[in-house]
C-alpha cells in the first residue's frame, strides 16, 4: 500500500488519447503545474496524449499549465465555467478559429456534477441556469412549486491534483483555498494522480484533518518546490 511514484513521468503514465482529464485548481490556486508540464513533455516526445477533454474551472492562462496544453495541441475540448483569465489567448484563439470545443457549465453545477460523479449520483436537480440558454435541451422538473434543471454526473478517466501534504497511502491535505475543486475531482476520476509538496508516512496526518481520503488516490509524487501559476506568469514563462 505505497502509492508513491518516483517521478513526474511515472506519475502521468497511462493518460491516453481521447481521455477525459480533470485538472484541479481555480486559476493558479491549486493548479498542478508540474504534472501538467510532465504531460506536455510526454506529448512533445511521443505525440500523445492528444484529443483530451479537459475539465477545469477555467481554460488556461498565459503560456503555461492548461494554456500550454492547448497551445501544444493536446486539447480537443474544455469543460469549464469561466474560459477567461488575465491572458486567455491560448483558448480564445483556438475557440474563435473553431479548433477547440467548449462546454460551458455554471460553476456550482460544475462542482456538483463532479461531486455527483464521485458519489455515484447519476443525476440531480439544480435551480441554476433554469430559463437560460445554458439549460437548453436539458430536462426540467418542478419541485414544491419551483423549477429546476436536471444535470448529469461528470466523471473522468484521470485527474491531476495538487496537494499540500500526502501520506504514502494517498491521504491528502490542501493549502488554504487551493483545495477548491480538487477533493471532488479526486473522487470523480478513475485514475487520480497527485503532486504533493510533502509526502509523509501513514499516521503523520491527523485522521481528522485528512481532506481527501486515500481511497480516492492512485498515485502520489513529491514536488517540493512547486511553481505557482501567477509567479510563472510574472516571469513570462512559456511552456508549450
Amino acid at each position, binding site marked *: 500500500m505505497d502509492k508513491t511514484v518516483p517521478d513526474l513521468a511515472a506519475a502521468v503514465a497511462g493518460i491516453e488519447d481521447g481521455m477525459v482529464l480533470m485538472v484541479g485548481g481555480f486559476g493558479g490556486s491549486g493548479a498542478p503545474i508540474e504534472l501538467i508540464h510532465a504531460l506536455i513533455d510526454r506529448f512533445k516526445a511521443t505525440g500523445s496524449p492528444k484529443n483530451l477533454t479537459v475539465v477545469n*474551472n477555467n481554460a488556461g492562462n498565459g503560456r503555461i499549465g492548461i494554456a500550454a496544453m492547448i497551445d501544444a495541441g493536446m486539447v480537443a475540448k474544455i469543460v469549464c*465555467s469561466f474560459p477567461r483569465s488575465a491572458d486567455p489567448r491560448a483558448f480564445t484563439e483556438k475557440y474563435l478559429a473553431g479548433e477547440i470545443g*467548449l462546454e460551458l457549465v455554471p460553476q456550482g*453545477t460544475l*462542482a456538483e456534477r463532479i*461531486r455527483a460523479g464521485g458519489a455515484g449520483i447519476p443525476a440531480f436537480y439544480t*435551480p441554476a441556469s433554469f430559463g437560460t*440558454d445554458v439549460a437548453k435541451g436539458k430536462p426540467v422538473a418542478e419541485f414544491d412549486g419551483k423549477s429546476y434543471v436536471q444535470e448529469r454526473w461528470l466523471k473522468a478517466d484521470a485527474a491531476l491534483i495538487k496537494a499540500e501534504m500526502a501520506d504514502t497511502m494517498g491521504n491528502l491535505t490542501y493549502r488554504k*483555498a487551493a483545495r477548491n475543486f480538487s477533493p471532488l475531482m479526486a473522487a470523480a476520476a478513475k485514475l487520480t494522480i497527485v503532486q504533493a509538496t510533502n509526502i509523509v508516512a501513514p499516521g503523520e496526518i491527523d485522521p481528522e484533518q485528512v481532506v481527501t481520503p486515500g481511497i480516492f488516490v492512485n498515485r502520489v509524487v513529491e514536488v517540493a518546490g512547486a511553481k*505557482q501559476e501567477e509567479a510563472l506568469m510574472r516571469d513570462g514563462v512559456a511552456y508549450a
Partner: protein
Amino acid sequence: MSQKLSNAQIAWRAAQDIADGAYVNLGIGFPEMVAKFQPPGRQAIFHTENGVLNFGEAPPAGEEDWDLINAGKKAITLKPGAAFFHHADSFGMVRGGHLDVAILGTYEVAENGDLANWSTGPKGVPAVGGAMDLVHGAKRVAVITDHVTKDGKPKLVKRCTLPLTGVGCVTRVYSSLAVIDIEGGRFVLREKLPSMSVEELQAVTGAELVLPDMIGDLIAPEV
C-alpha cells in the same frame, strides 16, 4: 439629470442594507467595492465561491499568497474565524439558501426579476462563472448598476433582451439614480435622488415604476 451617484456611492448605499453578522457574496468586479463601505460597528462575513468564508481586504503588494484568492482571482487575507471548504460545499452554501445577500453587477434587470449579466450576445467567448448559481439561494439577490448604459439606454427594462442569468431572481436594484424593489413582477420605487423628479426617473427607466406613498431620498456621502 446632470447628477448621479458614482459607483462608490452606489456601493456605499448597498452596504447600508447589510446587517451585522450577515453572510454576503459580492460578485466579481464592481460589487467587490461594497465591502469597503460596511457601516461602523457592523461586521459582515464575506463568502467567495472558491471556498473561503470571512476573508478580508487585499494584502499589500508583494505580500500576496496566490493560494489565498477570491473568485475574481485577486489575492485576499483572512479574518479571525475564517474557514476553507471545497467547491461543492461552497455552492451548497449558495444554492442552499445560507447566504443572506448576494450583490451582483448587471447588463439588464427586468421588472419581473430576470437578470442578464453574463453575456452580451453570441460573439466572443462565453463565460458564466458562478453567477447562475448565485442568483438562486441567497435570501436576497440585489444588483448594483448604473441606471442607464453608456449610450443612455435603460438598464432597468420590461423584459431582458440579453441572455438571461436567472429567472425572477432579483429583489432589489441599487442604481445610480434610485433604489428599486422588485415585487409582484413590478419595479417599486423606494428611493430616488432628491434632485430628480419621478417623471425624469421614469423617462430613463424601461418599465413602469410603481410609486408607493413614501419615496425616500437617495443620498450618499462623498466616498
